[in-house]
């Protein structure tokens, strides 16, 4: 064999060795890629998933360092644009550990950036003494996509958990609401009066409330109110107000016939008891309190509540608030509205769930429609039929749209016999 032939054969061997090494490396990368995908499926914990992917990446690519940076965009006025979080891993032969060390600047570096959610941005940087080849960058791109995917999965999982907690809170609020309120319907033991109450909670629990009490001298006390806001805080405050009201009603009855409080005094007593709780919660409570004595003498005190109407004989009288809602100004004194409840009259208290219900086009039921509907509704002799008339109109207006807010209706009138 000539020297030239030997050289040629040696060259062929070198090419074959080089090709073989490339094939082995390529195969190693493929196997590495398969191994990379395994840990991401096992955990929904963000830190654990990222650590596992980083360890595999360091092992496959023989990295000295790996850095993942998340830069938050200005998603809210409270989050400065410079907000960012960084995680470092230091390569140790076949594994990697989280570290705060940084490379000394002699390593080759590969970096890439991709959007995360909204304005946030994710970047990955890999470091090692040897330069990164085309195949390495493909693997690093896969590593980066896996890390981003793990973050998205973990956060979606967290969001789902938070939603479940909110749903649980809503259920708790709904149960508190239901437990605190007296059973609705046509109220029993109401003497010569026909009283019907209903409270339909919306999906996102609001803070509608109502209460009533009949004392031994046939005086009937009643109240309808609405805590501003929704959810658990509103439901908890609602129960506080309901308990204060019922205590005040009972105390008034215990004082003996003719010596009880008037509705403005009772309202002030309730305000004194609940003001701090309402104020500290940053909410307020609209509340109308009334009393109907054995001779059908009506007395009402209104703190910011609407709509409150006396309807009878083709006429409507709006019973206006004389002080702001409870929780706004401490120590307000309401002016008592007084009238005789005639046989054809109906006193109808509601909450804004009636007037502010929207239809699919977004149009409100409205104060005017509500008021004119009352004039038709009072043609029914029974309080329960008046309620049903109004509820049917509200359902027809909503036309399938979800209930916007709690809806409460309280109807009080003379009992019609026969």
């Amino acid at each position: 064999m000539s020297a030239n032939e030997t050289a040629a054969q040696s060259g062929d061997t070198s090419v074959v060795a080089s090709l073989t090494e490339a094939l082995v490396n390529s195969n190693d990368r493929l196997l590495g890629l398969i191994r990379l995908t395994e840990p991401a499926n096992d955990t929904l914990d963000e830190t654990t998933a990222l650590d596992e992917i980083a360890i595999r990446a360091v092992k496959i690519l023989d990295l000295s360092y790996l850095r993942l940076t998340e830069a938050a965009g200005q998603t809210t006025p409270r989050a400065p644009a410079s907000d960012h979080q960084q995680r470092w891993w230091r390569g140790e032969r076949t594994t990697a550990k989280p570290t705060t060390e940084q490379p000394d600047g002699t390593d080759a570096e590969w970096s890439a950036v991709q959007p995360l959610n909204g304005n946030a941005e994710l970047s990955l940087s890999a470091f090692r003494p040897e330069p990164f080849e085309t195949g390495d960058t493909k693997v690093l791109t896969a590593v980066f996509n896996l890390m981003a995917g793990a973050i998205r999965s973990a956060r979606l999982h967290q969001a789902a958990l938070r939603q479940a907690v909110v749903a649980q809170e809503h259920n708790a609020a709904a149960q508190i609401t239901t437990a605190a309120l007296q059973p609705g319907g046509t109220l029993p033991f109401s003497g010569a009066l026909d009283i019907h109450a209903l409270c339909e909670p919306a999906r996102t629990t609001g803070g509608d409330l109502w209460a009533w009490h009949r004392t031994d001298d046939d005086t009937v006390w009643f109240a309808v109110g609405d805590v501003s806001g929704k959810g658990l805080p509103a439901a908890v405050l609602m129960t506080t107000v309901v308990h204060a009201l019922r205590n005040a009603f009972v105390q008034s009855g215990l004082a003996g016939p003719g010596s009880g409080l008037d509705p403005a005094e009772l309202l002030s007593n309730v305000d004194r008891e609940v003001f701090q709780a309402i104020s500290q919660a940053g909410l307020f409570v609209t509340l109308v309190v009334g009393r109907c004595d054995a001779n059908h003498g009506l007395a009402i005190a209104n703190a910011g509540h609407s709509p409150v109407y006396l309807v009878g004989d083709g006429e409507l009288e709006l019973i206006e608030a004389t002080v702001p809602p409870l929780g706004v100004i401490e120590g307000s004194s309401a002016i008592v509205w007084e009238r005789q409840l005639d046989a054809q009259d109906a006193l109808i208290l509601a909450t804004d769930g009636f007037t502010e219900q929207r239809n699919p086009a977004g149009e409100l039921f409205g104060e005017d429609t509500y008021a004119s509907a009352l004039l038709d509704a009072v043609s029914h002799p029974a309080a329960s039929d008046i309620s049903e008339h109004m509820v049917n109109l509200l359902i027809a207006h909503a036309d399938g749209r979800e209930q916007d807010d709690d809806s409460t209706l309280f109807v009080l009138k003379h009992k019609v016999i026969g």
Partner: protein
Amino acid sequence: MQITTTHPQPEVAHSLDLVGRFDAFEVPSFDDIIASLPSETGQTIAVDLSQVEFIDSAALASLVRVMKRQREAGGDLILRKPSDPVRVIFELTKLNAAFTIED
């Protein structure tokens, strides 16, 4: 709802113009903007309600919170030019007696 903050005026430290529905869904954005305003003792904030087409009790509660906070710090919250639907709500709830309202 659109919220625009304008430059300080002589009598108020911050002025906000609200446009659209001001309801429970908009309250967190409003609260965030109010919280982000630089605050000093005795400052007054003005909120223009002339282009608010609807206001609910959650939004009213938010305004009450701001009003109380400002007054406790020696300042005030001024509500400017409430639109007719908003004015009706303030009258019905008697909250017009609690706020400083300018036409």
